[in-house]
């Protein structure tokens, strides 16, 4: 039988050597991992605006992104802030500044892409929602980072779920923000047809994840509402 002091000594040696090993590995691999994450974010921005595919290579992602995606910073009133770029934004400090991405082809805007994020059931979910140039119709939505239950909440990033958002409207005919709600069950069976464009089918087994989605999608759209109104009003005057 070992003495207690030896037990403590042994535990300390094991813990310290394990942590040194892991710290070293994490440090060595960090740059590559962050590059991958950055690439994945770009892929998701593209995917939300229906550009590119799952199997794109690194070069293709970067090429498409450079070709189509532009970004700018706006403030809470929806006005462009020109002395900062999206990359310089610090979400902890720049509370009154918002990043805005848009897809552009030959100088014409095809889609506005807004970042969305918030709590699901277990984790913070990050994603993008792309709106068509009327700033009302959803072009696509993606979720790229979350820690929801595989097979249940994690289904939110699957195509069968996200494709339901396509063509849905975030505004009422009067221009008020309604957002899009994931319901429990099937839209076809539960929602009258003239309201169906604000709702999408739920995922059985992930009611709480979807509840989180409903809340943060609405909150994040609310923040961009001044910008949405501004662009829409300008569009109507023309």
């Amino acid at each position, binding site marked *: *039988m*070992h003495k207690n002091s*030896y*037990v403590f000594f*042994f*535990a300390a040696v*094991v*813990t310290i050597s*394990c942590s040194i*090993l*892991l710290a070293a*590995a*994490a440090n060595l*691999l960090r740059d*590559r*991992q962050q590059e*991958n*994450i950055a*690439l*994945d974010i770009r892929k998701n921005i593209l995917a939300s605006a229906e550009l590119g595919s799952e199997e794109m290579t690194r070069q293709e992602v970067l090429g498409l992104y450079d070709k189509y995606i532009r970004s700018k910073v706006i403030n809470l009133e929806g006005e462009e802030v020109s002395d900062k770029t999206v990359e310089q934004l610090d979400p902890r400090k720049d509370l009154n500044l918002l990043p805005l991405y848009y897809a552009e082809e030959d100088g014409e805007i095809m889609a506005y892409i807004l970042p969305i994020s918030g709590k699901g059931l277990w984790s913070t979910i990050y994603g993008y929602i792309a709106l068509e140039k009327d700033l009302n119709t959803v072009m696509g939505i993606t979720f790229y980072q979350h*820690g929801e239950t*595989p*097979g249940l909440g*994690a289904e939110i990033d699957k195509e069968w779920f996200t494709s339901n958002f396509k063509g849905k409207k975030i505004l009422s005919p009067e221009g008020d923000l309604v957002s899009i709600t994931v319901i429990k069950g099937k839209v076809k069976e539960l929602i009258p047809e003239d309201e169906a464009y604000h709702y999408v089918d739920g995922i059985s087994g992930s009611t709480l994840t979807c509840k989180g989605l409903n809340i943060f999608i609405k909150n994040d759209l609310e923040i961009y509402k001044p910008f949405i109104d501004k662009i829409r009003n300008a569009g109507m005057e023309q």
Partner: protein
Amino acid sequence: MAEGNTAAETKVQTKPKEKLFSKKNKRTLSDPLSDNNPITLQVLGICSALAVTVQVPTALVMSGAVVFVLTISNVAISLMRNKIPSKIRIIVELAVVATLVILVDQVLKAFLFDISKKLSVFVGLIITNCIILGRAEAFALQNKPWPSFLDGLGNALGYAIILLVVATGREILGSGSFFGFQLIPDSLYAAGYENMGLMVLSPGAFILLGLIIWGQRMISQKFEEN
């Protein structure tokens, strides 16, 4: 078998040296591949076997991760077997296994990001895979590093074989492809053939796994006694 007359070996070896690939060592490696397969005979580790076998590439990466973790953890624990205080041996084993698993997870995130996203939590869950702690407890704590290495490799490969067989079946039947390449010609789809949706879901894995276990026991004629 008393060979090995070099100074270093005579110092370390008190008993006559066992050959690297003696009959016993070979059995240590080959037994878990079939007769004592961790999945089909002991029915361990099936949680991940169900979760990552929808397609072959993910199953292959998962297998690679388990081979790495299991062999290294067996060797590491075997090397420390006389030093580990028995009071805290389980937690020490877990620390070793967890370290290796996190290492694998970090490497996957750096080099195989897409597959690591698909594997999601299941790489992390290798820590709780019964095969790994089971081999550490049942084998590595009592045996020298080399046999422990073989035992770890054998068990991991036994796990990998079943994973790959199940994944191959599920991908061909469920998605009509193998390793991402379409196998079923378009003409067959045009003629009314449909992919078996059940195979993409977990029950598909259960059914295939059950068939494999049944087949293996038919051949080996080994049954559990009532």
